[in-house]
């Protein structure tokens, strides 16, 4: 089944104000940067964004924050972004901070037809407030619910016309779970190849989870913390 769309404009068709959007990536690593750059130019606002982080001031989701297109962020860590902090402390931006593993599992559950699950993470903390607690094997756990989204936007290294995806290194992160949890999942890839070119043994996300795929026009792939060592 051919999932290819010509460009980012077509890929994002139907994405409207007030929708819930999942965006893959960890920090700036593995984020769908072509889609985000295009969302900035669309006349949309009031978005609920589910993403582990919120980008930096001038890259990634930080760009949508600057234009006040985001109403609510669901994330695990939001440092490195001054505009984010300002909007949050002034009450303009709603923020739901949840443990990283719970965020990953809630997306996975959403895509896997599991409505909720118990986890030990967050028991006895603010995160547990209002949540059901149950003991298993003598240890308290809290009930976390699944997350789904109107659109999930993921970034992969290689993809084929069937929507099968392969990620590179740690740019995989949240992308596979989010790909499963979108009503419509858009994959932007660095390299789009005909079906049959990718080794079926090596595919990370089966194309059944992907509705639209396109090759990104340009990937800046910005590095957030450049750390190096000197040659001896």
């Amino acid at each position, binding site marked *: 089944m051919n999932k290819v769309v010509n460009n980012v404009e077509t890929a994002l068709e139907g994405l409207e104000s007030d929708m819930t959007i999942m965006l893959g990536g960890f920090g700036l690593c593995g984020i769908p940067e072509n889609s985000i750059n295009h969302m900035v130019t669309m006349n949309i606002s009031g978005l609920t964004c589910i993403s582990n982080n919120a980008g930096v001031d001038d890259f990634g989701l930080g760009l949508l924050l600057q234009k006040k297109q985001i109403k609510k962020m669901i994330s695990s860590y939001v440092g490195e972004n001054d505009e984010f902090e300002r909007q949050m402390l002034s009450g303009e931006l709603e923020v739901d901070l949840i443990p990283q593993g719970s965020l990953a599992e809630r997306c996975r559950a959403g895509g896997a037809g599991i409505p909720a699950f118990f986890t030990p993470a967050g028991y*006895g903390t603010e995160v547990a407030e209002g949540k059901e607690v149950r003991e298993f094997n003598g240890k308290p756990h809290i009930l976390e619910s699944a997350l789904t989204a109107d659109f999930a936007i993921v970034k992969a290294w290689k993809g084929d016309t069937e929507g099968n995806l392969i990620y590179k290194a740690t740019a995989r992160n949240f992308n596979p779970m989010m790909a499963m949890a979108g009503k419509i999942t858009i994959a932007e890839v660095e390299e789009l190849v005909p079906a049959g070119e990718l080794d079926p043994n090596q595919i990370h996300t089966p194309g059944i989870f992907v509705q639209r795929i396109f090759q990104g026009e340009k990937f800046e792939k910005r590095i957030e913390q450049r*750390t190096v*060592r000197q040659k001896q």
Partner: protein
Amino acid sequence: MALDKNGIAQRIAQELKDGWYVNLGIGIPTLVANYIPEGIEVEFQSENGILGMGPFPFEGEEDADLINAGKQTITAMKGAVFFDSATSFAMIRGQHVQLTVLGAMEVAQNGDIANWKIPGKMVKGMGGAMDLVASADNIIVAMMHANKAGVSKLLKSCTLPLTGVGCVKKVVTNLAVMEIKDNAFHLLERAPGVSVEEIIAATEGDLIVPEHVPEMSF
């Protein structure tokens, strides 16, 4: 002499055992990787999705797709593996990781830890810390004994929002190594040249001091 950050990391490295998978948090814990004792093989897990994390790359060899949980560019060791975030936290929650080392703003004598939020001041989020402390059997906290204002970080009970309850077993600071059990800090070792009195004075929580407290050896 109180230890510096590298000294704390070096002391914690002595806790490593051959064959362990280890998760190192951001800050002092990251430095532990520089002091792996000879003859010991450990593998480092970073929760954004790598097992077998290597040192920083040489200049010019950075890869934007290869970072650690602190978003720093890294390398992958021979035999390394990449995985998604759900799998990563399956390793952590499923207790497949033998040791977690992380920093803290406060630790209480009952093992509570706070390290993610200062209400009204700093709200960055917990990242993977809550999953890590809720599941790991073996958690070592690496931190300075007092905060920048000189106030003890080893308390009777935490004042900041908690990251986890009753989970910390051991704390290594610039002054001492302490074990947490029976609702108290138990002094195990002191930093070279640091007196027991200094440690008592710097600890707000209940501190059990045995008759003989050895100096850390390096």
